[in-house]
């Protein structure tokens, strides 16, 4: 059925075994959501900024071809080498070939969800390149041989005691020390040595400006800058949708990005890379990997407006209680659940169902993506294309047959009411997938049809 039998509901059930931990996870993310609320509520122009950002992104998607060409031309004039990758494999090979040309086999990398999506680390490891993730959260999950569980807070699922133990094992910190200040200082020392010795740095891209051929990378830690400014070779990886038309549009996006993400007014560093440092190589890899296909899906194309702030994660009642790994894809949460089926409908058919459709995600989205409506639409597409889970398919077929045959329908209703009333254990058990998440209703004496027939006679 699903690839590796990975299904959101099953993985969430595993995460849900430890109830206090689920509560803690839930509360921590809700705290971040509240910080976001405080930051946006003090800006009277917040809604106008959202609308502007949304319209700019709509324009980007409708003219993406031209903007990419303009960006390429200006970036090349600035001395940047521009590469194009149709898919994850080509992206990974391009990175490797740039490293090979420079005889580099040890690199640092700052956060880039695109490289997670392309599984770059695994690929580079397989060809003998040592990659050190330099974002603290990413370094923690990398040491633990895990994937990030959140696109902004990669190790939000880890407790400080576990991180203390991990650092004791890998960085030699004293056993039992779980003080965040102390552990961060240990990581700072550990990673500074990497920054000073590695000759190539990979970064992501938050925004690429068509007008000027520059790109912007936002971090709080300063790790992207430490890597890029000390390396001989800087490789920046970006999806085609990272383009914005004009430099002044950064004024809109940098006002909304971090407020939505963590409630800060801006990230500590918003670095604009326009030309390579003297004597340095600067490469940009522009990656499609299914994005142009998503652009052609009318119902789903505006998922490409996403600026990866993760506000939809932090507000989502399902994400907060099921954890990022239950989504079994690089970008989890509500937005990931509409991006992933585009990459592989079969493998990610479960994700659009991992939502209550409450709409909170759409309400906080700074670029006004109709996330919950797209989740609903994906469910219909997946059912039609035959990618729904087998149990759901059988249930839906049974339901369709029952509803289209009045005699069967009446009989089934009668049986159902009798069973719920007299033999409740037959439905209130683990075998009933419906009962697993819900209380069964109490059984009425008669159906509406029966009631109507009786009363109609009385009144005649």
């Amino acid at each position, binding site marked *: 059925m699903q690839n590796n039998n990975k299904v959101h509901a099953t993985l969430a059930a595993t995460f849900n075994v430890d109830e206090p931990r689920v509560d803690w996870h839930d509360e921590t993310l809700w*705290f971040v959501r509240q910080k976001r609320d405080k930051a946006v509520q003090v800006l009277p122009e917040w809604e*106008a900024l959202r609308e*502007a950002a949304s*319209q*700019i992104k*709509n324009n980007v998607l*409708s*003219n*993406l071809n031209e903007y*990419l*060409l303009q960006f390429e031309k200006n970036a090349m004039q*600035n001395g940047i080498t521009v590469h*194009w*990758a149709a898919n994850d494999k*080509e992206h990974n090979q391009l990175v490797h070939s740039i490293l090979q040309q420079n005889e580099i086999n040890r690199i640092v990398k700052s956060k880039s969800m695109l490289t997670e999506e392309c599984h770059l680390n695994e690929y580079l490891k397989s060809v003998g390149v040592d990659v050190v993730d330099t974002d*603290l*959260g990413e370094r*923690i999950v990398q040491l633990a041989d895990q994937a990030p569980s959140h696109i902004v*807070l990669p*190790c*939000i699922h*880890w407790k*400080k005691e576990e991180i203390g133990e991990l650092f004791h094992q890998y960085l030699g910190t004293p056993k039992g020390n779980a003080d*965040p*200040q102390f552990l*961060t200082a240990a990581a*700072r020392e550990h990673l*500074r040595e990497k920054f000073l010795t590695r000759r190539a740095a990979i970064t992501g891209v938050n925004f690429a400006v068509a007008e000027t051929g520059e790109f912007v990378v936002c971090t*709080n*830690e*300063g*790790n992207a*800058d*430490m890597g890029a*400014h*000390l390396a001989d070779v800087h490789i920046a990886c970006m999806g*085609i949708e990272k383009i914005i*038309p004009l430099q*002044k*549009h*950064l*004024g*809109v996006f940098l*006002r909304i990005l971090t407020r939505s993400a963590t409630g*800060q*007014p*801006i*990230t*500590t*560093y*918003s*670095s*604009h*890379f*326009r030309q390579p*440092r003297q004597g340095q190589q600067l490469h940009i890899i*522009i990656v*499609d990997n299914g994005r*142009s296909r998503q652009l*052609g899906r009318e119902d789903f194309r505006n998922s490409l407006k996403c600026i990866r702030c993760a506000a939809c994660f932090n507000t989502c009642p399902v994400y907060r209680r099921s954890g990022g790994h239950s989504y079994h894809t690089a970008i989890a949460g509500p937005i990931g659940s509409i991006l992933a089926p585009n990459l592989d409908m079969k493998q990610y058919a479960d994700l659009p169902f991992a939502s209550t459709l409450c709409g909170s995600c759409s309400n906080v989205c700074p670029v006004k993506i109709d996330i919950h409506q797209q989740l609903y639409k994906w469910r219909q597409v997946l059912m039609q294309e035959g990618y729904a889970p087998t149990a759901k398919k059988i249930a839906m077929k049974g339901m369709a047959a029952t509803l289209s045959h009045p005699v069967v329908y009446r009989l089934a209703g009668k049986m159902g009411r009798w069973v719920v009333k007299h033999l409740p254990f037959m439905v209130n058990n683990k075998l009933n997938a419906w009962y697993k998440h819900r209380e069964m209703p109490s059984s009425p004496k008669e159906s509406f049809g029966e009631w109507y027939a009786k009363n109609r006679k009385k009144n005649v």
Partner: protein
Amino acid sequence: MSSREKILAAIKNNQPACTPLPEVEYFDQSCTPVVEKYKTVLQSIGGKVHEVKDVAAIIEILRQQFEDAVRILSVIDSFSGYAEMFTQGDDPHKLDNVDVAIINAHFGVAENGAVWVTEHLLQERVLPFICQHLVAVIDSQNIVATMQVAYDRIAGTQYGFGTFIAGPSKTADIEQSLVLGAHGPKTMTVFILHNQQ
């Protein structure tokens, strides 16, 4: 067909009908007391800020604040009596032992406490990231209200690298506990210089 052509063709084929770019409003900020706002915001994100009359006043404060600092490096000439002057062409890796770096910034942004600096002012791109403590000097006349006004000032200027820096480097990756000094400076101090006319 190369990947470039394939991608561009697919995009051209799949992109929707053109929708116009919006006219983005500036949201009038003429009533914002920018210096006050700048100070409040920078302090709220972990930065330190002082209003001063001249460089001598800055040096006096720095002497107290960084009593134990061994290597204090400045890219501003007027600090030559107090700090080591930056030498152009040095290997940026050698900046690893800089305790305090003193830089000029083009302007500050009141809404988020950031300063805008470019390669031209920094001399070496890594300088404000690799030092243990960062000191930036801005003119009191050069504080704008929002990022939108900031980009009006940046428009048309040339730089190979430029960055907004808002406070010390930080992380909250361990259980959302805020720690100042992730990879970059552990402190950032901004001096707002009131030039006497």
